């Protein structure tokens, strides 16, 4: 088994992502962000439905760093305690896989519901 296959297998086992993790990855998809900005972005994206606590956010960040889905982003003049994070290429690939999975389910659900209604 190649390293790529193993990585794909690990990714498939990590999917589906929990909603907080998905929203964290989505907030980092655009640009690097630090902890507080991620918290606020997650809240905004979910229309206030998902409100992460700092403990939950950093638990997820630790796991994502360990799994190499995100990385620290070194800024030139970073204030103390404001570390930014960004997606790695692996994280972006995994996020894309999750989005594809969700698209497939949405398509399937639309089709089934439409068939039932007609």
């Amino acid at each position, binding site marked *: 088994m190649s390293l790529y296959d193993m990585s794909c297998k690990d990714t498939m086992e990590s999917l589906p992502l*929990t909603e907080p993790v998905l929203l964290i990855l989505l907030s980092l998809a655009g640009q690097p962000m630090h902890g*507080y900005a991620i*918290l606020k972005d997650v809240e905004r994206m979910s229309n206030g439905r*998902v409100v992460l*606590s*700092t403990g*939950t956010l950093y638990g997820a960040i630790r796991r994502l760093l360990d799994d190499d889905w995100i990385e620290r982003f070194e800024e030139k003049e970073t204030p103390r*305690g*404001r570390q930014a994070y960004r997606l790695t290429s692996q994280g972006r690939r995994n996020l894309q896989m999750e989005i594809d999975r969700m698209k497939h389910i949405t398509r399937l659900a639309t089709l089934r519901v439409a068939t039932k209604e007609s």
Partner: protein
Amino acid sequence: MITVYRSLLRLYPAEYRRVFGEEMLAVLSEECDQLASRRSLARVRLFLREAGGLIGGAVREQLRGFLQIEQELSFTTGRFAMRNGFRFPISTIIFMALILGCVLTAIKKGQDIASSVPNVNPPLPIHIQPVHSILLGGMPLFFGFFYAAGLIGWAILYALRRSGVHRLADVSTAPK
């Protein structure tokens, strides 16, 4: 509030605090600043959410450190997921169910035999203590012993972890 958060951060493992402690405090203080002008109810809600999150996070990280279990607990969604390393093998469940079935069948058979021949054994002149009473008497002692052994083991592991001896494995003597 920040003082309380700082105290709660002490519940996390030292390594975790070293890496994320300052960042987490910065985020918490930014949240407090944002809420300074808001109603006290919003501040109480924030405090409860953050304190709960910190305690839950600390428990997860300590568990991860002690047991090396990679578990994902999301209190926001209520989802609990375990990775492969800690999956309960399905064969174990089958064997356990099989053993339970055999034990129950044996008990039933024994009861049937006992009820079909009620007075086959004449009463003995001496009193013999039933085996289950001996077992029940010994059970607390048995469990107490293993509970104490478990506690001692846990204390040793905790002391080793606090001493930082596990980090010696990462020490490299040869230059990279």
